């Protein structure tokens, strides 16, 4: 069992959990992910490692409640346990001193970009970070990102905080303003954001690494459900990734594969919410505050 030691509500739909998983923490590196199974009837949910503490034997997970499983996970509290946590999975980020680099984090993707930005900074890079979300409410870890970046740009889609822009606008400005200076770019966020980041940087020929979170089961190369189509053939996100050259990814294939189980996901969410409301109704009827 893997105990939840800390829980933070970062927004209505974004939760942070510090989980006891010493065997994962001792090996975890920036860029890797884990798989969580909440209970015996649950799904195996891949989540990128947002942080880790080898001494304490803990890992930090940040997730957005989008499907049935993440909504259910959001209801778990300190003291509760996941039945299974396995990892670390995938390759870690290639950290070295590239010179000047940019880290782009979108929404809940800000969490996994953080340890990458931190390690790149520690390796001597000049780090410019661009973080964005739909609204101010969904923005997270601005302070932490600022602490590991030489420069931080914040955007929101609706202008409720920072610049009213998509992350790609300041990204393009930097690439135009500092021609040839940016050596590498990392982008983590919703697939559609990563697609547009890759499209933005392509004309400038700046290597752009994206971290993909596709549908998978085992996370060890067994099922092949996570395969992503690249220019030179398909690869498995779980063992070959999760980081890939964003300019080589077939984004349309990726987006359609991500949508494959959407009807089932929606049905599961509806069922979960109905069930949840019923329980709440019953509790209220029974006079529980």
């Amino acid at each position, binding site marked *: 069992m893997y105990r939840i030691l800390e829980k933070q509500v970062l927004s209505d739909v974004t939760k942070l959990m510090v989980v006891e998983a010493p*065997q*994962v923490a001792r*090996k975890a590196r920036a860029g890797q992910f884990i798989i969580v*199974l909440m209970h015996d*009837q*649950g*799904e*195996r949910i891949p989540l990128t490692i947002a942080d880790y503490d080898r001494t304490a034997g803990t890992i930090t997970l940040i997730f957005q409640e989008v499907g*049935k*499983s993440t909504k259910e996970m959001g209801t778990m509290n300190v003291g509760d346990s996941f*039945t*299974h*946590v*396995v*990892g*670390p*999975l995938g390759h870690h980020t290639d950290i070295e001193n590239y010179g000047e680099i940019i880290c782009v984090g979108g929404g809940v993707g800000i969490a996994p970009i953080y340890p990458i930005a931190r390690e790149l900074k520690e390796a001597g890079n000049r780090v410019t970070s661009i973080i964005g979300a739909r609204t101010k409410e969904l923005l997270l870890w601005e302070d932490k990102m600022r602490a590991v970046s030489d420069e931080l740009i914040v955007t929101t889609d609706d202008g409720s905080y920072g610049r009213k822009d998509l992350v790609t606008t300041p990204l393009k400005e930097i690439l135009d303003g500092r021609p040839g200076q940016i050596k590498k770019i990392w982008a983590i966020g919703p697939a559609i954001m990563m697609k547009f980041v890759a499209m933005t940087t392509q004309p400038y020929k700046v290597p752009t690494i994206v971290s993909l979170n596709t549908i998978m*089961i*085992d996370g*060890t*190369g*067994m*099922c*092949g*459900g996570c*395969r992503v*189509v690249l220019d030179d053939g*398909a690869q498995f996100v779980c*063992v070959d990734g999760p980081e890939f050259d964003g300019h080589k990814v077939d984004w*349309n*294939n990726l987006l*359609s*594969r991500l949508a*494959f*189980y959407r009807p*089932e*996901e929606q*049905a*599961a969410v509806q*069922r979960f919410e109905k069930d949840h409301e019923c329980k709440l109704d019953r509790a209220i009827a029974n006079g529980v505050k």
Partner: protein
Amino acid sequence: MATLTQKERMKIPRQDMPVQTPEDRVRNFSEVALGYTLEMAKMEAERCLQCKDPHCMEGCPVEVRIPEFIQAVRDGDMAEAVKIMKSKNNLPAICGRVCPQEVQCEARCILGKKGEPVAIGRIERFVGDYELANKTLEMTKEAPTGKKVAICGSGPAGITCAVDLARLGHEVTIFESLHTPGGVLVYGIPEFRLPKESVIKAEIETAAKALSIRILTDYIIGRTLTIDELQAEYDAIFLGTGAGLPMFMRIPGINFNGVMSANEFLTRCNLMKGYRFPEFDTPVKVGKKVAVIGAGNVAMDAARSSKRLQSLTAGANGQSGAEVHIVYRRSSAEVPARLEEVHHAKEEGVIFDFLTNPVEILSDEKNAVRAMRCIRMELGEPDQSGRRSPVPIKGSEFDMEVDQVIFALGTSPNPLVFTNAAGLERSKWGTVVANTDNGRTTLKGIWAGGDVVTGAATVISAMGAGKRAAADIDRFLKGEFDWQS
């Protein structure tokens, strides 16, 4: 029963095992074969001639003392039958269900020369199930040796090796990458052939508990722990990590939605219990027209699971027009699956398209499979495997309307395992090079057996390899020999 003459024994017909009818069983995931009653098992046991020089045992990779346990069943002494069985095989309920007895023990049975062989597998299963229900045997272990052994993988090879070593007094830890022990028995073989809770979990848990075997799930060798770390902590290591990597054909369209490996499809069904979605959270999709590519046991499992999912999703009336095809490039004579599996699949309505090979998968505007372009094949000269190799017939392409394609083309070992294992030699197919007699690899103190050495094979051959390695590891730990690969 009074003692029978050999002639009388030979007149007893081979006892059929009750099964769910095809009409019933395609609507559920419950076990197809229901097992013998005690009367049936005793009657079948009466058929055994108790040969002075029995050949059946030569066909068994783990050398079960077959005539002896059958005699005990005949005598009605089930505790004795269990004891004899477990002296060689600790997982009889599993083996009785999935061993290809028709090419092993039963193939050597003298009765098979003129009629039908003794149904050794069915009696074995009865003995295994009897023990799971009655727990007559207390498994004992020898005094602790103080030696520590790491077993990587909890499939048939690993479990067998672990049990044998634990009985000899060694301290055994099993590392399993998934969340449930059992390996391919749990993620690959469907519930309707091998029940997960009542058989696998029960048989593994009983053995692990009795022998104090520590099973650590969620440990991926190569990621959570590496082989060099295990070497530092354990006196011996056994690799039974199987062949988990799926193969896809190199044809256009394999990444459209609806194209998947049998591994994914079966793992969703079996390990994650997708057929019980939404009670279980992992969904599994089935098409209206499913093509399973390949004709091995895994292909049969995928096809038969598809049939069941089609009936379940369509409700009680069945789905009109739903079809499941096995698409195989060779002919019926070359089918590698067990006869019984093919027979069951046919009974359940699976359609076999022989001498047919996919060349391209076609999609609709939403990136989902809509058809599979195939080409007809004919048999040419025998290839290296001795089977006549299929050759495409020019101009015979045609489109098969399907909305799901499942590749069951075999699997290869997962290279993840070999992270930080310098010196561990592997073949060009990615399998570990190991001595077939004793399982020794090219690295001192590391043994390997099962699919990771042979490539995808049978449960019992993996168990045999686990057993041989266990015996050799024991001799090594007792200092009976100096290591030589």
